[in-house]
């Protein structure tokens, strides 16, 4: 039963993220848009580029989808509504999303096209920037919860959400998460304007559908992780827990998708500079501050 509910939640969540994504790009809210686009992709030819590395080409999009789905397995929707409450959930979330890089490099390499390959490399550069900033804010979150379990992390925020307790961590995690989900302005690997679609460029038909689905799940996963780590997960008055989770996750996804559109695309070199010169010192300061708070202010 839990499985069915979670699957439905996932399907609805991914669809909603796809609607939001189209809204952020075209400024039109078309509830039918993603369905039409998906059907249309299904109807199109599946082109296998000449000289492609077949294995990488086929595995890339699937791996992206699988990695993103795995990371969602440790996200609680409500008390008891979680695919698997691992004791090391917060760590597992990182581990699962490490495959995003592998998937993108494979998908970029596979078709033997310049755009895809450069897109893959760029994501590698991006990863070196954001990777530490995913882990370090989570460290501060788990310090407060004194547990790596995502359920414990939500419960630890019962009296005060982490967004107030450690706002600096939220900001850093939000940027890193956006870079990890390669949403604008960190969408270099799949940039239309300067890479003609990049990693996505050579995918058509059903393969492209899988790739796009994987990307939507990834965005959903990052948004729900922010909900769990900083916005108190299912906690909230009046409404049932799952509703709070859904509202918070979609709200965060909408802010991520729309907010990123305000900035010009950011090169991976700039991102590296920001992350390592500014982000990591701040993340260390955040860990230090939270450490003091945990000792001094028992909330």
């Amino acid at each position: 039963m839990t499985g069915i509910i979670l699957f439905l939640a996932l399907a609805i969540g991914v669809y909603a993220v796809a609607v939001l994504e189209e809204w952020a790009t075209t400024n039109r809210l078309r509830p039918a848009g993603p369905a039409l686009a998906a059907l249309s992709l299904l109807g199109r030819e599946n082109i296998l580029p000449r000289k492609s590395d077949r294995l990488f080409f086929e595995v890339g999009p699937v791996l992206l989808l699988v990695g993103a789905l795995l990371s969602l397995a440790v996200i609680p929707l409500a008390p008891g509504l979680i695919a698997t409450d691992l004791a090391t959930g917060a760590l597992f979330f990182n581990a699962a999303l490490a495959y995003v890089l592998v998937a993108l490099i494979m998908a970029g390499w596979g078709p033997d096209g310049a755009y895809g390959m450069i897109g893959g490399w760029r994501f590698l550069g991006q990863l070196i920037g954001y990777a530490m900033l995913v882990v370090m804010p989570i460290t501060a979150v788990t310090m407060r919860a004194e547990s790596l379990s995502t359920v414990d992390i939500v419960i630890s925020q019962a009296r005060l959400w982490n967004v107030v307790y450690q706002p600096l961590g939220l900001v850093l995690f939000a940027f890193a998460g956006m870079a990890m989900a390669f949403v604008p302005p960190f969408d270099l690997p799949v940039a239309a304007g300067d890479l003609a679609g990049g990693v996505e460029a050579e995918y058509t038909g059903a393969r492209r559908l899988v790739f796009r689905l994987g990307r939507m799940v990834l965005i959903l996963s990052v948004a729900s992780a922010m909900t769990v780590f900083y916005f108190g997960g299912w906690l909230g008055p009046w409404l049932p827990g799952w509703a709070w989770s859904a509202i918070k996750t979609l709200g965060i996804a909408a802010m991520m998708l729309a907010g990123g559109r305000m900035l010009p695309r950011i090169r991976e070199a700039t991102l590296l500079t920001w992350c390592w010169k500014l982000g990591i010192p701040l993340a260390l300061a955040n860990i230090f501050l939270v450490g003091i708070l945990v000792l001094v202010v028992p909330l």
Partner: protein
Amino acid sequence: MFGAREASDSIVLAPLRRLIGRAMARDLRVLVVPGPDVALAHGLDLVAAGLRPAANPREANVLLLIGPLGTQLRDAASIAYAQMPRPRAILALGVSEVGPLPAPDANAGLSQDGLRTAVSDLRGLFANGTFAPMTEEFQAPALQSRIEYTCPMHPEVVSDEPGSCPKCGMFLVPRETDAGSAHDHAAMASAMPVTSESHHHAHGQPAPAAYVCPMHPEVTSDEPGSCPKCGMTLVPAASDGGDAGHHAHGQTAPAAYTCPMHPEVISDEPGSCPKCGMTLVPAASDEGDAGHHAHGQAASAAYACPMHPEVTSDEPGSCPKCGMTLVPVAPDEGGAGHHAHGQTAPAAYVCPMHPEVTSDEPGSCPKCGMTLVPVAPDEGGAGHHAHGQTAPAAYVCPMHPEVTRDEPGSCPKCGMTLVSAASDEGDAGHHAHGQAASAAYVCPMHPEVTSDEPGSCPKCGMTLVPAELDGDGGHDQSAHGGHDQHDSDVLPEGIEPGFMSMVEMTEGTPRSSDGLQMEWIKAPFGPFFPGLPGGLTLVLTLDGDTVVAAETGTLVGLADPLRHGPLAPDDYVAQIGAGMPLAPVSYQLLACRAIEAAAGTAPGEESEHGRDAALARERIASNLVWLTQLGRQLGLPRIQRAASAFALTIRHADRPGILQQAPDLRRLIDRTRATPFLIRRLAQVGELSADADWVGPATADPTAAGRLVARLGEITDSLGEIEAATAIVLPALAPIGDASGHGHASVGTPRGIAILDVTLDAGKVAQATLDTPSSHHVGLVGPLTEQRELADALVALASLDLDPWEIDA
């Protein structure tokens, strides 16, 4: 002709297919030929017509042709069409001739209404005919290739049919080549990376190949087989008309026998090597030495074994001694020949970390203990590299040697502080020399920080280290390639000459400015690349994601209206406007002014003001199209949407209409200026040098940010001009009769100053010379893109706002 997707008539799947067809009819993604900017210039609103622009052909299902299209553009479009997944359709607006493309599925005039009706026709087609039992193939002629067969060992053996090599009997392997003039694989996504080496490969056609025993170099054979001495399989060895012995030549010019492992061991008689005990092998004793040998090869491309420098070949392959893949060596004067040469004669070794440490024998660096690596002597490669890079500049980035400045500052690529470089002819050695003469202590990180006393660096706090005090001493140790180092006696033994050295292995391969070797790829950007002007072709040679070289071209190009002979002035004005779809009014005005100057007539003052207002209106519209493209390229959809909406309405609006929109337009400009990080991002790219041939809007700031601000300022100024005028008057010629004469005019087009000289002969335009801004600016593409990161290079290119119709094809 509708490019439906093949599917059998299945009753089970039919409803699903109908559903898919209907969905597809409502999800049309369009690839615009020549480009979305041209669509905007023609006043076509794709989104309002229900089309969504696609980033590349793979994403598109509609190919929108905006005519008229030249042959080259149609060829490129046919490649894009072939790359589009089926079902796919062609929508032609104002296009008469489409070949080699199949006939369009929907046709209409070049207008928004035409587009709207054509799109609804297409929707019907997609809804009902997405799948068809029978489909037609489309082969783009430009993509056609043929298969030829070649021997893996003898590249000169090429055949149209499979078979075996007449030389060695091996099976010929298939290889794909262009069928004809498929040189410009202009279109897009499937652009296969082409290694620059592969060009070389084709060159070095060997003469007769020989086979040689890997252990017994004296055993050679014209045919494959095994060694009579040891039974090992003979390996192919390339040589120019002789046996493998030739290779060993130069090491021992006057000697007869040499050790296969220790080329420095030479003897006049057979025997065994005193170092390793191997049997000495005969070496040639005639005049021909390895230097000669390699010289001959160097002209085309030579390859050498990284472990056995004496093994050279003029084609790629593997070393007959150790089986390692041969690496290319420098094809220029120096490199390979001298190099192989240098093993025993005047060879120099240098520390990879301390270029001033040189020795004429192998050994390790007294400073850091690293093993010395061989360098080519005097005229050779490595020395020259260091040389050329730092010659005239005063400051250089420690990470990006190509970044040089006359003044101190920081590197635009990595932000590191530039360090002073020797500005005289000297190389790295000179550099150290110059400092050492005066200073006693120097910062290990900041060579420009010197002091007479010990202390710490004011920049990084590191303790200063003693520098070579004595000027002459510094000179001796400097990296002069070590040719006058014969007196050096500190010679540790035991290093194989030609051990695995990165310097050697990568010598002669294309070298990035950062010194790292990567495979270079050539990738086309354009003619339908989103974010670049449609019709502009850009082929970038990429080293990783750094641009090494940029070739710009156009598939549309400047058309001379007078190519068929003299024209009546009115026809000339009309044709020059038609030939410039991105700025027709400016060029019509230019032609009118030049003809009026030639005929000695003048329009009334009223009409002159009206014309200026028309020019101002076009400038606003054109700058907005550019802003749309910039928004598309940088991922700023809000600016993109707003700018394109204004561009569409303003191009044909009258004065009151424009004034009504002016406040909103000014808000857009303010919002663009205030976009976070936009100006900072653009300020890092596209910096023009002071003497650049720039005729566009004047800017104080020579970067792309300056050009953005200047164009936004032009929009504001032009709004003011329209406010000041009483009406907008399109340029038109008054009758000039039979006037003859010469006229000169210039007009500030949206992209810069354009100049036209016309000669009238009995009332007809007989001669005209047109000078367009883009023809100047296209020369700036190289300096603005080379050695920049790809995204920066593309932004820099876009900031030039090139008009492909203004460039000579």
